[in-house]
């Protein structure tokens, strides 16, 4: 869906999020925001700026530090007719609320035979940025195989805006995962109301030699790697998944069918990661065996700058992985 207003406006990543919420909260009185410091403070990244002033403290509620109950509240309120967005500032702490999210939220439609649903969005921020082992994780794979749970991960302001609108209109539950390193960025966002459908990947860059499949902040790393590889005559195609569950295997496979080679890239560890799922789906569909996965080394992500840098994938590692794959 895209309204008739043409053109784009450049917004900070946080403004794209606030805009999506402001529009949906204006459309739909059932949309509320719950979380730590979401009210007057406007959120850890100012991603909820202006909402408290516009909609008041009944609809934009500060909660205590109690993720299990915050998510349970959101799930229960959703099942009872509201459309809540629950903010979990650090994805690392989503695990405190996995029982209500997974054992109730993801299962309530099934277990009640469709009598109840949980149209809830859990918005959480993943990723490493010098904050240490318990404030740096990318846990998307933990959620991707839960039947009943949708997971989306924007890589830029426009998709943050469009995917969040889609998530807020979805029957849910949807986990919306953004990234610490996306907040300092800015991007062109459509001026008119626009929804980015859940379940559709986007081809960010066209190329014929290799397909890099990635999501979130790593799209920028992929882009930087692709620039370097292009200088040496290697043309990369970059597929930005945007949705992790449901995952758009069709777009991925269509790309790899042309390039014949796949490199998956994620900031989290490769073991049982997003790339593992993508690689299997591609291999099962196409029989392609030129596959490599790039992700974090299998260690916790320390706040120590030397160790953090040693742990996380960067453009150089992606370039090396592509070269190794294409030479093999």
């Amino acid at each position, binding site marked *: 869906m895209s309204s008739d207003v043409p053109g784009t406006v450049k917004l900070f990543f946080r403004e794209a999020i606030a805009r999506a919420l402001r529009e949906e909260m204006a459309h739909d009185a059932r949309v509320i925001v719950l979380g730590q410091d979401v009210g007057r403070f406007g959120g850890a990244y100012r991603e909820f700026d202006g909402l408290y002033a516009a909609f008041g403290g009944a609809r934009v509620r500060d909660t205590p530090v109690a993720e299990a*109950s915050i998510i349970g509240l959101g*799930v229960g309120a959703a099942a009872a007719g509201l459309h809540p967005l629950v903010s979990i500032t650090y994805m690392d702490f989503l695990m405190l609320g996995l029982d209500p999210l997974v054992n109730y939220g993801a299962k309530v439609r099934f277990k009640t035979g469709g009598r109840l649903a949980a149209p809830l969005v859990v918005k959480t921020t993943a990723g490493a940025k010098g904050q240490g082992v318990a404030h740096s994780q990318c846990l998307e794979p933990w959620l991707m195989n839960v039947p009943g749970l949708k997971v989306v991960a924007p890589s830029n302001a426009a998709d943050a805006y469009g995917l969040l609108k889609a998530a807020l209109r979805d029957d849910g539950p949807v986990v919306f995962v953004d990234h610490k390193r996306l907040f300092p960025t800015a991007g062109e966002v459509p001026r008119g109301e626009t929804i980015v459908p859940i379940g559709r990947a986007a081809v960010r860059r066209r190329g014929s030699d290799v397909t890099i499949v990635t999501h979130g902040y790593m799209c920028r790393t992929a882009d930087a790697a692709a620039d370097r590889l292009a200088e040496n005559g290697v043309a990369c195609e970059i597929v930005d998944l945007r949705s992790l569950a449901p995952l758009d295997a069709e777009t991925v496979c269509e790309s790899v069918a042309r390039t014949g080679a796949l490199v998956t890239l994620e900031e989290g560890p490769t073991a049982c990661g997003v790339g593992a799922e993508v690689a299997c789906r591609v291999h099962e569909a196409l029989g392609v065996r030129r596959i490599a996965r790039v992700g974090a080394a299998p260690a916790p992500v320390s706040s120590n700058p030397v160790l953090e840098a040693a742990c996380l994938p960067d453009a150089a590692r992606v370039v090396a992985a592509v070269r190794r794959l294409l030479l093999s």
Partner: protein
Amino acid sequence: MDADAIGLLRSMLLIRAFEDALMRRPDHGFQLLSAGQEAVAVGVCAALTADDQLLTSGRSIGPALARGLDPGAVMAELLGRASGPNRGRGGRGHIADPDAGFFGAHAVVGGNLTIAAGVALALQLSGRPGIAVCVFGDGACGSGALHETLNIAALWKLPLVLVCDNNGYSIATQQAAALAPSRLADLAAPFRIPASTIDGMDVLAVRDAARAAAQRARLGEGPSFVECLSGRFSTHSTATRETRAPDELATLKARCPIRRLATRLEALGTLTADARSCLDGEVADSVAAAIAFADAAPYPDPDELLRDVV
């Protein structure tokens, strides 16, 4: 003694007879029975209106029947038939009929507490009449979920009644070995939530306490905690061994909530022998009809596995 008392007795008799009939079947499945704890289910439901929502733990048969769900539909759900309110998918652990004010059971110990708070929040924010009531066992009282629910319910004055159906055991572990407070209602004290401890084998006491708590919630005064001291006549579940000595069980059964109310009504002349026979007959017919309905109901088709997942 009020006219409703006969209705309360009938409800409790129905639960007892329903469970007896269920347990006589070889295909009874994995069940947690309410026998002995009927007064809590029936007394709480007597305080609810059609606008309210009841949430329970996995010990749901008594509350579901007390809330007015059709016994045939409940039996079908327990036996995995598609004619149950949840197409046989939830069973006893997850049975739900929100249109009937039974938001449902959830089989995770303490798992329904924060959910119930969310339901209360939705009711409060949307300005709908109605409150949320959550029944849980003493087994849930060691969990962080209870502490978090008490805190947020008190802070936001949620229209929520928390009913602790304390049968004295978390499966095989006695209350004193699992929980530091001797009076579980004291768990609500730090949050300044009104709390009471009552005889959970006395349906009228349960009803009166539940009504007072419900009224506070309806008036916007916030949550209450009602601890009902009860006792289960069976094992924790059909998969659990009995751990209590015969004389402990005998002492407990002497406090049967059904016998207690019936004796009172008989003594008052409100319940004659004929009237009691009539009640027993109605209940037996109801249970027989429930069994027949469930037996005639189809199982769900395997092809519907992927329906209503996402």
